[in-house]
C-alpha cells in the first residue's frame, strides 16, 4: 500500500515535523519506497507467535522507591534556549 498526501500531512502533524511544500513530493515518494520494502514482512504467517519486545525476553528491573537525583536545576536549565525564574519558557498556550 502507499501513503496519500493527506496521510503524510497527518503524520507530519503527529510527529511535529513541518514539511515545506517543495519537499513534499520527495518525502512522500521515499516514505512509500520504505513501506514497499517492509511490506514483505506483513505477509508472514505469525499466528500464535508472541511479539518480541526485548531480545533477551527480560522484564523491566524494578528498584527501591528512593530519591536518586539531586537538585541540579540550574545546571540543566543552562542548556535551555529560554528560561526565567527557574521555569522553561514556551509560547503562550492559554489565553
Amino acid at each position, binding site marked *: 500500500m502507499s501513503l496519500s498526501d493527506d*496521510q503524510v500531512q497527518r503524520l507530519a502533524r503527529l510527529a511535529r515535523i513541518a514539511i515545506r511544500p517543495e519537499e513534499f513530493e520527495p518525502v512522500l515518494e521515499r516514505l512509500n519506497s520504505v513501506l514497499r*520494502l*517492509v511490506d514483505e514482512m506483513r505477509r508472514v504467517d505469525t499466528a500464535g507467535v508472541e*511479539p518480541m*519486545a*526485548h*531480545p533477551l525476553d527480560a522484564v523491566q528491573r524494578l528498584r527501591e522507591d528512593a530519591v536518586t537525583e539531586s537538585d541540579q536545576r540550574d545546571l540543566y536549565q543552562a542548556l535551555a534556549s529560554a528560561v526565567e525564574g527557574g521555569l522553561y519558557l514556551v*509560547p503562550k498556550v492559554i489565553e
Partner: protein
Amino acid sequence: MLNSSLTEISAALAARSISSVELTGLFLDRIAELNGELKAFIWPEKTRDIALEQARRADERRAGRGNAGDTGPLTGIPIAFKDIYCTRGVHTTCGSRILQNFVSPYDAHVVEQFYRAGAVLLGKCNMDQFAMGSSNESSYFGPVRNPWAKNRVPGGSSGGSAAAVAARMAPAATGTDTGGSTRQPAAFSGICGLRPTYGLVSRYGLVAFASSLDQAGPLARSAADLALMLNVMAGFDARDSTSVDRPKEDYTKALDAKLKGVRIGIPREYLAEGIEPGVREGVEQAVSWFTAQGAVRVELQLPLTRLAVPAYYVIAPAEASSNLSRFDGVRYGHRAKEYADLIDMYCRTRAEGFGDEVKRRILVGTYVLSHGYYDAYYLQAQKVRRLIAQDLLRAFERCDVIVGPTAPTTAFEIGAKADDPVQMYLGDIFTIPAPLAGLPALSIPCGFDAAGLPVGLQLMGRHFSEGLLLGAAHRYQQATDWHLRVPTETPL
C-alpha cells in the same frame, strides 16, 4: 606509536619511554593533519586542550606512585568517543544540528568507566545523524571519508570512529550498534568492531535511537584491543534498566581460544547472490583457514534472513520516533527563531534540527505506531523478530559461531546510495539479525577486493559468548596480517 596496539602503548607508558602528553600530542597532530579531509572528528580543536590536560593529569597519577595500584589499565591512553556518548563539559552533537550547541552536563556510564581506567578523551567522532545511516553521509557535519579511498564512505553509523582508528588518528574508539553500526564501518574501513550482547554494556548517557536494539561497542585495530576495550566497557549499571547483572569477565583471558572442534556455521543465505565476488572470496578463504585449524564447517539455512531488514526498518523507526520526541526545543537543543505558537515552534524546531534521514525514520515510525496500523506493522514486526531470533537460536544448537560477510559489498562511493534509502537499508542484511536476537557479533578484516578495499568477516555467537568470538578472531589475526595494513591514502 601511532601504529601500536593498546598493549604496546600501555607497556611504553608503563616503562616511561613515552608520556601520555607526548603520546596524546602525537595523535592530536595526526588528527590536525588529516581531519580537514577525513572529517572523522567533530570539532577536534575544541577538545584538544581537554585531551592534553587529561593526559597531563594521567602522567601525574603515574608519577605519583612507585607501585601500580591506583593507575587503571588504560592510564594515559587516548580514546576517541563517538559523538553519541555524553561527555561532561564537551559538545555531544549526535551528528545533528538539533544538538549542535549541546554541551553535556554529565558523563555516560561508559565514559566514566574509561576515565576510571585512566583513559584520556582524545576527541568526539563524527557519525550518521542520531546513528541513523550506514555511510556517515547523514551527519550534519559532513560525510566522513574512507582512509582506503577518500571518494568512498567509511560505513556507518560509527564511521568517524572507524575512519579515525583506521587512519591511525586514534588507537581505539567507542561506537554504538543498533543494526550494525560498529561492525559495518569496521568492515568498510579495514578495522575490527564488536557489538556485545544486549545488556552487557550500559547505555546510560548514550543518546537513544532504538532502545530494544541499541548497544555500545568498541572499534579497534585488533581483536586483542577489542578485548581490552570491552573489559572497560562491560559491566552492570543500575542506571540502564536493560543492563544485565552478571559477573565481570576478563576478555583478554579468552584470547587463547582453541579452534579444534569449534563448529562454524555457514548460512547458505549469507553467501548467496548479490554478494560481491571479492567479499565472497575473502570470507571463503577465512573459513578455510578456520577449518584447517580443526574447526568444523556446518552448513546452515536461515531462510528468514530476507525478513530481517523489513522487520528492523519497522521496529527501529518506531522506537526512534518515540525516543526522539524529547527534542522539542524546550529543555535543550536548537529552537527555531520564528514561530506562531507552541505547536508551530515544535514543528519548525524539529524540521530545522533534524536531517532528512532522521525525519524519514520518525515519519515511518509514527506511521507504524499510529492507530489502525500498529498491529499490521509494529506488532507484526515484533512477531517476525521472534521468528528470526528463534531461527538463529536453533542454528546455535548445531554450531558455536556463525560466520559470513559483514556486508554484501565493500565501501561504496560517497553519494552512490544517498538518494535511495532502500538500497542503503538492504546493505544492512547481515548485521541486522544479531541485534534482532540480542546476540554478540564482531567484524574483522579478512582480505581486500580487486579495488584494494577491505573486506569484513563477521562472527556471531550465542548470548554472552564475546570471549569465544574474540578468541577465534585473535587466533585468526595471529596467522594473518589483514588487520595490520595501513590505509593506502593515509600513509604513516
